[in-house]
């Protein structure tokens, strides 16, 4: 019964906090309190920043105390409250945005960090300041809303998940503190008004990713995975930094107001100049979003707690790369529209996205662990987003691809987070992360089963009722209509990936919920641990998300129209990118679908059917045994092995980044360092400095007279210099 009570608290408390805060915020009259946009957006970043060290310190001090442990769930409730506040503020911001459009798109400076007066030629002083400001427009609000909403829900889930697992006892405060720090990083990155601050928060997120993946630091696999994640994204970040330097060199500022305000800087900057900086920055995005070829880390990051995987590696951090591309894309496109750009930037983005989508989807087909399947799926879907954003630049209608990418970002965040949290429940209940250890769970875990189907259908792009369908369809349409020479190959890859996506999703559902109970489950049952539904505090968050995906799916078309309109306006306002609206074309489709591209629509339906059908055959209906199928044909067998080993990409990367440099370093050490540096510089420099020191020290004889002599010599010296 106590368990029940605690679970009730878990439910009621966050809802109460959210509702009351929302109530207060929306009722407030902004003018009277001075609670303006600046302040509230500042709070969104400041609240987690202040709360996370508090949790850390209090957790350390109050470890094990009852109030902290049970009532506050070791800081979980505190974190949840902070995130509820940020969510409420975001909602308020959105309301304000729709009410007063005019304020937005302008930077609001929060405070000045450093001001340097730099002397430029001719004794003129120019002030250059590094200041932190807020930049809010539709892009940032969209991503901010996704981020705050998901952070809130996943924190809710995490409270239940982390505190009911005994190996986490007494260290959850670290988890929640790092969770909050990460949230702050995400919110700050989205709201930043200059590339500098974007980068700073980007790095904070990378740090938290490292900390959270390696949360179970006593497991060597976790520590290694954390290191790998950090280092791989670091490679991307180095390129990002170089890109930022180059950008600064061009614009002499990293602020959005300067760069977006006049991208050509009055004719000084050409599209060709921007190519390399933006390309390097894109490599940073590749790293962060686990695109090919920096995709290996995402997989191994699954050793962290599932809540972490849900938050960081499905919903927010990996979207950061997409966010940056979304920020950069219009810039480049605007320059292009002015007649001075090259297509290659967008082609690269589109191809990287396409390759990643296909590559990772294939790997998801064969993996036996549920979280890894979802991880591959994430990478693959982000590939779709990149594809969309890239293709947007290749077509004349920039806004189509842009909208598609963003819509998919939103919907993917929701259903993927839902899937991950559900997977967390499964892990929690079954105690194993292998799908082969599960099976036949649909009778016992009805709610999870239902929600996973909802989210899974969204992932597959089940027609008309899930948001996944509309967003994927939008991407297909954008690709098809881009009119670029690469459109057709990318389109084919996209369709193929959709087939595989549907397949592996169905496979996942089949392996987990259908069929007989696995041996593992039977063993558990015999020992008395019964399979049961997850506690309320765990299934409610992903239930909400799953229902949302269906809900948005039902109004999908108008949602898409709305987003289309919103971004069209944004691009127009900020970059002068025009979008034309379809003007009364006759469409082959029935009335309410008339805005869609028929080929895209047809292809997505076919893809869904094919994939689902294949999956059903193998895993749900179990008409064909997958094992036998693989072994039946040497081609399939080889392919399976290749894919299972992740296309040997990992080995390749390891060789390139670890083995080869180590070998080179050793050679260098032996032939260069030991001789030239060690003998030459170290010994030589040491002797020189030692000699110098002896000379100087020797002058300090201890005899006061000699000191005074030197003093006198000094006076003479000074006077002489002045005379000359």
């Amino acid at each position: 019964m106590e368990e029940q009570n605690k679970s009730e608290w878990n439910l009621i408390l966050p809802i109460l906090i959210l509702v009351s805060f929302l109530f207060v915020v929306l009722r407030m009259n902004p003018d009277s309190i001075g609670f303006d946009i600046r302040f509230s957006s500042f709070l969104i970043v400041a609240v987690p920043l202040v709360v996370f060290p508090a949790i850390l310190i209090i957790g350390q001090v109050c470890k094990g105390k009852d109030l902290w442990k049970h009532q506050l769930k070791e800081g979980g409730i505190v974190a949840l409250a902070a995130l509820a506040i940020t969510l409420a503020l975001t909602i308020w911001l959105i309301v304000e945005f729709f009410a007063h459009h005019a304020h937005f798109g302008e930077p609001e400076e929060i405070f000045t960090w450093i001001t340097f007066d730099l002397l430029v030629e001719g004794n003129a002083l120019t002030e250059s300041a590094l200041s932190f400001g807020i930049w809010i427009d539709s892009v940032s609000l969209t991503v901010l809303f996704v981020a705050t909403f998901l952070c809130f829900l996943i924190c809710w889930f995490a409270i239940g998940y982390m505190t009911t697992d005994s190996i986490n006892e007494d260290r959850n405060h670290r988890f929640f503190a790092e969770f909050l720090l990460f949230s702050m990083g995400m919110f700050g990155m989205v709201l930043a008004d200059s590339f500098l601050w974007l980068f700073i928060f980007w790095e904070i997120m990378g740090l938290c990713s490292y900390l959270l993946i390696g949360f179970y630091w006593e497991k060597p696999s976790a520590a290694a995975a954390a290191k790998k994640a950090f280092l791989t994204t670091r490679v991307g970040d180095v390129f990002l930094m170089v890109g930022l330097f180059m950008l600064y060199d061009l614009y002499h500022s990293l602020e959005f107001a300067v760069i977006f305000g006049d991208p050509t800087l009055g004719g000084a900057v050409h599209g060709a100049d921007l190519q390399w900086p933006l390309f390097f920055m894109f490599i940073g995005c590749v790293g962060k979003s686990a695109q090919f070829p920096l995709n290996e880390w995402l997989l191994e990051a699954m050793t962290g707690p599932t809540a972490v995987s849900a938050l960081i590696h499905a919903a927010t951090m990996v979207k950061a790369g997409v966010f940056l591309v979304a920020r950069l894309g219009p810039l480049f496109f605007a320059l292009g529209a002015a007649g001075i750009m090259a297509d290659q930037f967008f082609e690269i983005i589109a191809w990287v996205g396409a390759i990643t989508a296909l590559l990772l989807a294939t790997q998801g087909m064969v993996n036996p662990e549920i979280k890894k399947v979802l991880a591959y799926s994430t990478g693959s879907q982000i590939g779709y987003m990149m594809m969309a954003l890239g293709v947007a630049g290749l077509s004349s209608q920039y806004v189509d691809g842009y909208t598609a990418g963003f819509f998919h970002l939103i919907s993917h965040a929701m259903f993927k987070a839902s899937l991950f949290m559900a997977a967390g429940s499964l892990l929690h209940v079954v105690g194993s992360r292998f799908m082969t250890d599960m099976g036949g769970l649909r009778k016992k875990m009805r709610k999870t089963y239902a929600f996973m189907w909802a989210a899974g259908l969204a992932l597959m792009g089940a027609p008309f009722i899930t948001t996944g369908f509309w967003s994927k369809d939008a991407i297909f349409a954008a690709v098809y209509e881009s009119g670029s020479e690469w459109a057709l190959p990318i389109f084919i890859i996209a369709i193929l990936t959709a087939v595989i996506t549907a397949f592996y999703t169905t496979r996942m559902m089949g392996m987990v919920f259908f069929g007989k109970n696995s041996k593992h489950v039977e063993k558990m049952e015999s020992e008395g641990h019964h399979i049961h539904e997850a506690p309320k505090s765990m299934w409610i968050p992903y239930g909400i998300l799953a229902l949302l995906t269906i809900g948005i799916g039902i109004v999908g078309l108008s949602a898409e129209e709305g987003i289309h309109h919103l971004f069209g306006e944004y691009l127009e306002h900020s970059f002068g990118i025009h979008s034309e609206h379809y003007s009364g074309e006759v469409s082959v489709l029935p009335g309410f679908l008339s805005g869609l591209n028929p080929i895209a629509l047809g292809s997505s339906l076919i893809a869904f059917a094919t994939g689902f059908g294949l999956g059903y055959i193998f895993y749900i209906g179990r008409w064909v045994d997958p094992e036998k199928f693989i072994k039946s044909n040497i081609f399939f067998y080889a392919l399976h092995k290749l894919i299972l080993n992740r296309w040997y990409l990992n080995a390749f990367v390891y060789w390139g980044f670890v083995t080869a440099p180590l070998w080179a370093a050793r050679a260098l050490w032996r032939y260069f360092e030991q001789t030239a540096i060690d003998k030459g510089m170290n010994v030589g420099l040491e002797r020189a400095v030692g000699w110098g020191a002896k000379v100087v020290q020797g002058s300090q004889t201890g005899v006061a007279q000699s000191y005074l002599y030197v003093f006198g010599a000094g006076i003479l010296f000074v006077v002489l210099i002045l005379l000359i």
Partner: protein
Amino acid sequence: MIELTSTPIMLMVILGVAGMAIPVINVIRKERGSSTFYGAIAFAALIISIGFVMYQFYSESIAPAAIFSADVLVDDSFGSFFAIAMLIVSIITVVGSFNYMRNRANPGIYFSLILLSTIGMVLIAFSTDLVMLFVGWELMSIPTYILAGFNKKNPISNEAAIKYFLFGALSSAIIIYGISLAYGITGSTNIGDVIQGFATLDADMLPIGLLAVGMLIAGFGFKMGLVPFHMWLPDTYEGSPPPITALLAAGTKKAGFAAALRIIILGTVALNLDWTLALGVIAIMTMTVGNIAAIMQKNLARMLAYSSIGHAGYILIGISIAPFSGLGLQASLFHILNHAVMKGAAFIAVAGIVTALAVTHLDKLKGLGRKMPITALGLVISLLALAGVPPLNGFWSKLMLFGAAIDAGSSLWWAPWLAVAGVLNSALSLAYYGWIIRKMYFEGETEKRIKEPASIIAVMIFSIIFMVTIGVYPEPIIKFAEMASPTLTGVVMP
């Protein structure tokens, strides 16, 4: 006539009353008071003073840095900047001395002398008259002569005091001689009048004017620790009681810079001399000598003394390019404040180590990181800040100094070399700082933790917070330094 409630007068009153009262109380109690009692009185007086300065500052009643004034003292932001710096140093010294003076003789006199010396430092910062400056200078120095030799029974302390005294007396004589020459030439000792007098000098009086300025540079250079006037510094810093070394290194040295800023620059500018090159050369020599000599040191206090010489060189970089770069002067002021806290903290850490373990030889510092964790942490952070490691405050001031030097390269061909020398010397300084850090943390077996005195802990925590906070958000101090720096750009020679 300067107001009675202005900063310098009020500070003089507060500190003077406390400083005079302590010996009286001492006599009344027949020398039975403990160091904590007298220290508390001194601490209270200092806190009131710094509160007063802060209050003046926040109530916006401080004028920007003034150069000319008809009065003897002027209440401007330059003075307030230095007053705050000096008061912080004095507070650090006083708090650090609570424990040091616990079992030693004459604690009352000790604290009283610190207070009186502080008055002198403050007066130097606020003065606009040469003789007032000199009076402040002497008021600052004479108590420190006594304080340097406070351990009467320790021959090393005696020797430190005598060397310091002889040098100090000599340079005082030289300063006052320079002042008298300036008076003789221009007929007044008000700084503004002196500058104007120098500007309209007869040609045959010029050598005497030069001589006057040269004397002043030599005299102030002694306190600042510039090469070649630095010879006394290592011995004195090594031999004095460590809290007093903190006062000397962080307080009196900065007062020397304050005096120099008020006088030398303006005087020599008016005399149309190419003194920037001279100061630049001195700066490079100072940095180099300081850092090279520090490398082979085995005594912690001596090593820090040489490091102080090096840092005086860095500060001088900014001053030497001052007519061409307002940023340089700002950076120097910023570094003055930073260095005051960093070095003060370092020497108070040494005080703690000396009191607890009675060792200053580097080899005996092994394992200090575990024996006295907070003191070691304070020492490490102050060393890293001195080396200029971000995100500590030393990084920002060094960045500004070197940046200003490079920027001034457009007007002065040799200015970037200052930056080069500065950077190389900073790298060199990391060598010996790193040595200390290694000895403290990475060598020695795990030692048992000993109880660190509360006053030392307090100073360490304060300085760590200061250094890290300013390191992360230096903007307020930079703005303060900007307000405090007298505008010299525009007063350039033809």
